[in-house]
């Protein structure tokens, strides 16, 4: 028999029948895995919820809580649903097994267990999990966590939908001259430190950093996953960005290094979101008047000499503790109508 190499994994065997538990554990231990057991569904779910396991072998027919109920509970949990579950059952329970696989079980095995099939199914499930984890990690590096999860859940397709959300643009003031006057390695390092700081401020407020263009960034609030207070969250993220930058500049100043100054423009309203590009190379982004307005407002921060400016619709979504200055009505390039904008003074 060929012995496919596999990493030792932590497995949970849930079965009310002692002979089954013993035989399954023995097979799996001989295959190099670490095994724990549970005698009924309830105990199994409790142990599995610890998040310590790479895979669960779950009997269907059990007292207290049957395998079907355990499976359903695991699939409802965003973390547990990532861990493969293999159903084990008697041959004549195939109807129930089919139901479990349709519901989301990774695979199934009939009892008595055939050790060769057991090895193959467990290893295949662990391998699939490993690939999925890797894919998720990769997605999260290049897309945001939210976009990654949506991609994994619904798959990729070009095209958009209309939503109401908030867009935030941020840009570093006179970055070109900063870049010209220092070593490229140092510039990249400076940018990376800057972005990591801004990302934290944005994601802490449920925002999604969508694009980075040179020294600029675009973040969305309320899309791809909608939440009611997207306007407030965006403004709080903007304030947090400025606060973090202030600390950053203090450190830079102490070390005699370059300080950064930014402008942030925020606008809310209807926009089209979705994947644009080609089948091979695409990004999740947003387009529309609202997005253009946020961009224009960001540019206007230079002229207005205020780092954080928002439009009127964003203002309407803010609680009283956020202090604003009315900057009046401004006619932006490419717009016919004047737009009332506000400078955010602080919380």
């Amino acid at each position: 028999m060929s012995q496919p190499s596999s990493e030792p994994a932590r497995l949970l065997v849930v079965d009310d029948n002692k002979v089954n538990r013993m035989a399954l554990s023995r097979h799996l231990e001989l295959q190099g895995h670490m095994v724990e057991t549970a005698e009924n569904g309830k105990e199994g779910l409790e142990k599995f919820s610890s998040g310590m396991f790479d895979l669960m072998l779950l009997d269907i027919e059990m007292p207290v809580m049957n395998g079907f109920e355990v499976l359903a509970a695991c699939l409802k949990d965003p973390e547990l649903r990532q861990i493969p579950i293999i159903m084990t059952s008697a041959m004549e329970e195939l109807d129930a097994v089919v139901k479990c696989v349709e519901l989301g079980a990774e695979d199934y095995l009939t009892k008595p267990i055939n050790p060769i099939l057991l090895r193959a199914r467990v290893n295949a499930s662990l391998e699939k999990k490993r690939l999925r984890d890797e894919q998720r990690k990769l997605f999260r590096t290049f897309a945001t966590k939210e976009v990654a999860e949506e991609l994994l859940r619904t798959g990729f397709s070009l095209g958009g939908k209309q939503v109401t959300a908030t867009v935030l643009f941020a840009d570093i003031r006179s970055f070109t001259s900063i870049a010209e006057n220092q070593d490229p390695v140092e510039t990249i390092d400076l940018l990376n430190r800057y972005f990591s700081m801004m990302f934290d401020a944005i994601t802490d407020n449920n925002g999604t950093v969508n694009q980075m263009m040179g020294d600029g960034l675009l973040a969305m609030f309320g899309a791809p996953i909608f939440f009611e207070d997207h306007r407030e969250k965006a403004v709080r993220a903007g304030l947090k960005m400025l606060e973090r930058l202030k600390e950053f500049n203090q450190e830079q100043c102490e070390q005699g290094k370059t300080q950064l100054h930014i402008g942030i423009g925020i606008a809310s309203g209807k926009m089209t979101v979705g994947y644009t590009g080609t089948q091979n190379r695409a990004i999740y982004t947003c387009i529309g008047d609202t997005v253009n307005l946020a961009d224009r407002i960001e540019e206007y921060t230079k002229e207005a000499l205020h780092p954080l400016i928002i439009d009127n619709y964003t203002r309407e979504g803010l609680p009283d503790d956020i202090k604003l200055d009315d900057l009046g009505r401004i006619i932006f390039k490419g717009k016919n109508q004047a737009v009332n904008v506000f400078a955010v003074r602080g919380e």
Partner: protein
Amino acid sequence: MTLLDMNTFNELKESTGEDFIKELIGTFFDDAVVQMNEMKIAIAAKDAETFRRAAHSLKSNANTFGATELASLARELEMMGRENNFEVGNRLEVLKEAFESVKKELSELR
């Protein structure tokens, strides 16, 4: 005539090891006595769920060792439990006899 499907039994023995299978057989014997007792009590109490479950476990274990005849007797009782049918006649006695024969054979193989 052998009561065990020797292919199944040997496969189990070879894949789990001699010492382990002795322990596993012991557990099967102990649990079978409990399961048959549960079935008897469940009939008297008209408790179809307990009856069915005990028969199900006995069937499962019999299959593990390749005791196909014993397994099909247990399975028949499991189905009756599923249908709430307690008219088991002498099936429990037949089951017990089948178990004793399997026990004898497995003890010799042990």
